């Protein structure tokens, strides 16, 4: 079966409220990998437990999943409001390192009083301000990932130099109320820049998404209507063009809650996905199962084969990195100059 020209992209949430054992997450990610999905997501917040249920750091969970999987992308939610921008960049870069280039992150903000009290550093702020800061964090993270050129580690025994200092760069970034000098503690991650995702359903994150997102989720309710998704997408396209960004380089996913009870439901979901995709509403889907075990199994064994049979979905991973799954290029390094590139040639 030839690979489709414009591939349909699929992702799935593996949120499992209250679950603390790693194996449950590994099983879910492996199942999604068997379905050849582009990536799994795991939500997170620095807020209090919901309904008294324990939660684990999402990035740590997906780092634990990484060696137990081979191809599937791993995209935890990482919040930018209370965590150090430098640490956000460092942790996401490391997830990319331990997964050999399969990492992304869904940027999110912490708007509640409860989260602010957990840190005791700042008062809660309006969503618009928090998303302006999130955009700055995404910006500095990308700069930190670029702060080591790909071939900065030279190990030149003759001169005793481990690194070429001309290929390490300060980022000298000024954010709202903070600054980051750089360079990063870690070398450039395998994907150059791990994939940045933003849920841009609401208005406050839209500008951050238009500037920095590689993947944009647009959430729908249980009875999805394409109109609202299309409107949000058009708004984001316009914002991107105004910023000089090519909207074609961003993957738009409709984020759908799913509850599949039988094979017929799985086929109906394939019908919906196929028609939205054919109408050009979105590039793919982010499914949010209501029951992680039941829904994911039906998704992989029911919906996916139907989409593959219709030639909309690939049946293997042609690439190894999440960027490759998403058909996104590996970004050039903004600090690599003709001078340094020429010197090594």
């Amino acid at each position: 079966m030839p690979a489709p020209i414009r591939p349909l992209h699929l992702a799935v949430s593996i949120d499992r409220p209250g679950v603390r054992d790693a194996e449950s997450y590994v099983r879910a990610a492996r199942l999604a990998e068997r379905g050849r999905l582009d990536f799994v997501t795991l939500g997170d917040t620095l807020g209090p437990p919901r309904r008294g249920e324990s939660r684990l750091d999402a990035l740590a969970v997906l780092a634990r999943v990484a060696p137990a999987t081979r191809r599937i992308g791993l995209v935890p939610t990482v919040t930018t409001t209370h965590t150090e921008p430098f640490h956000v960049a460092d942790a996401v870069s490391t997830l990319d390192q331990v997964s050999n280039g399969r990492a992304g992150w869904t940027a999110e903000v912490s708007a509640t009083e409860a989260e602010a009290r957990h840190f005791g550093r700042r008062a809660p702020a309006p969503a618009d301000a928090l998303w302006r800061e999130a955009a700055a964090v995404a910006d500095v993270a990308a700069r930190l990932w670029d702060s080591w050129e790909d071939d900065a580690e030279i190990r030149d025994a003759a001169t005793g130099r481990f690194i070429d200092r001309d290929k390490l760069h300060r980022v000298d970034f000024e954010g709202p109320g903070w600054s980051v000098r750089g360079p990063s503690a870690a070398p450039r991650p395998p994907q150059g820049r791990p994939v940045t995702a933003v849920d841009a359903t609401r208005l406050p994150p839209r500008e951050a998404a238009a500037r920095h997102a590689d993947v944009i989720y647009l959430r729908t309710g249980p009875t999805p209507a394409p109109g609202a998704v299309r409107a949000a997408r058009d708004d984001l396209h316009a914002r991107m063009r105004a910023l000089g960004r090519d909207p074609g380089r961003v993957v738009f996913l409709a984020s759908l809650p799913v509850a599949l009870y039988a094979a017929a439901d799985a086929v109906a979901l394939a019908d919906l996905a196929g028609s939205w995709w054919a109408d050009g509403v979105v590039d793919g889907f982010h499914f949010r199962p209501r029951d992680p075990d039941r829904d994911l199994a039906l998704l992989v064994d029911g919906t996916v084969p139907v989409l593959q049979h219709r030639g909309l979905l690939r049946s293997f991973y042609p690439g190894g990195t999440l960027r490759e799954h998403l058909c996104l290029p590996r970004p050039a390094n903004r600090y690599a100059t003709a001078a340094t590139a020429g010197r090594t040639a």
Partner: protein
Amino acid sequence: MTAGRARQRQPQRKRMHLAVRFPGAGSATVWADPRAGSRTDFASFRHLAATAERGLFDFFLLSEGPRPREHKGRIHDLDAVGRPEPVTVLSALAAVTERIGLAAAVGTAFHEPYELARRLASLDHLSGGRAAWNVVTSSDDAFLGANFRRGGGLDRADPYARAGEFVATARELWDSWTPGGVPRPFAHHGRHFSVSGTFDVARGPQGRPVVIQAGDSGEEREFAASAADVILTGHGSLEAGQALYADVKGRLAAYGRRPEELKVMQGVTFVLGDTDAEAQENAAEIRKQQVSPQKALFAAERVWGRDLSGHDPDGPLPTVDPDPAVADSLAVAARWRAVAEAKGLSLRQTVIEVTGRQSFIGAPASVAAQLDEYVTAGAADGFVLVPHLVPGGLDEFADRVVPLLQERGAFRTEYAGATLREHLGLPLPVWKG
């Protein structure tokens, strides 16, 4: 293994604890060797952790990467810099190891208790109770602070105050869930942290992750006695080790703790050979690799406070006097000159002579005997080994020294428990509510 098992039924002699530290960016690391592999690929971390687990080690210790040093206003290019973030690497290692403890050396200066306690508690769950935190108190706040919201300028007069309060706050968070799995609100209002709310990670398999404190100073010993499960100290003579060991253990009673509740582990290096003589030759060769001509010049520039780039590292020490503005420069230079003159050494040979000799050098049987002696003589409860090579630098120790330690009855022949606390013989923390 069989011999060790038979000995288990004899009266228990004191057994040592062993850990391995992923070598840092600085002088101990050898990277210009054909056997030196990547220092950032996951495969390298996996190899070293797997070797340590094969050797039944207590834990694998990984530090945060430093901000690359600067020298003469530019990024220093001789250090083996570049380090992924440790808690994330350890979370991944939890997938490919089963028993070994996973310890992250993370500073208190630029983290917040809620966030770090949460990540460590997550690691404890994801590893089935193998998480540890080596509490690092940064000494170079202004330099590191340039990357963080707070910036530099932490109170230098009392660098342990923030660290102590940080650890106490983390403990309150870890203790905030009942052992039965019910979250309880927490509130901590101190000088450095004022936080309250509800922690969202249930109490982990170890109750709390193991806390490791590094350092030999009086303040560091006191901090360890009050709050740590392991103190990581430097290595010196047997007598110095005994004195420190007795001092540290003696401080515990004031905190209502028993001597066995704090393990004293020495950070050490080692060099093996088929014979003691061969090991000495290997050690000398490794020192030459560690102190490249450029590193020797760099070390001299740090002491002299002058640009010595035109100087021949294989020639004599500089004849010019050091910049007296550099602290201790005159005294250090005088000591170097005395060594160089007495032994007829070049600049590079002098640096090799005066810096960082390996702790234990010898044939496997000799090294096993030396390690055992430190433990039986009451100078340490164990050791954190720092190999000079990544990723294979522990292979020979695991294959040749560990079996000899087991034969002596000085080291475990199997993991008796599942958690790091169990490996270390530490009691499960009592939940105080």
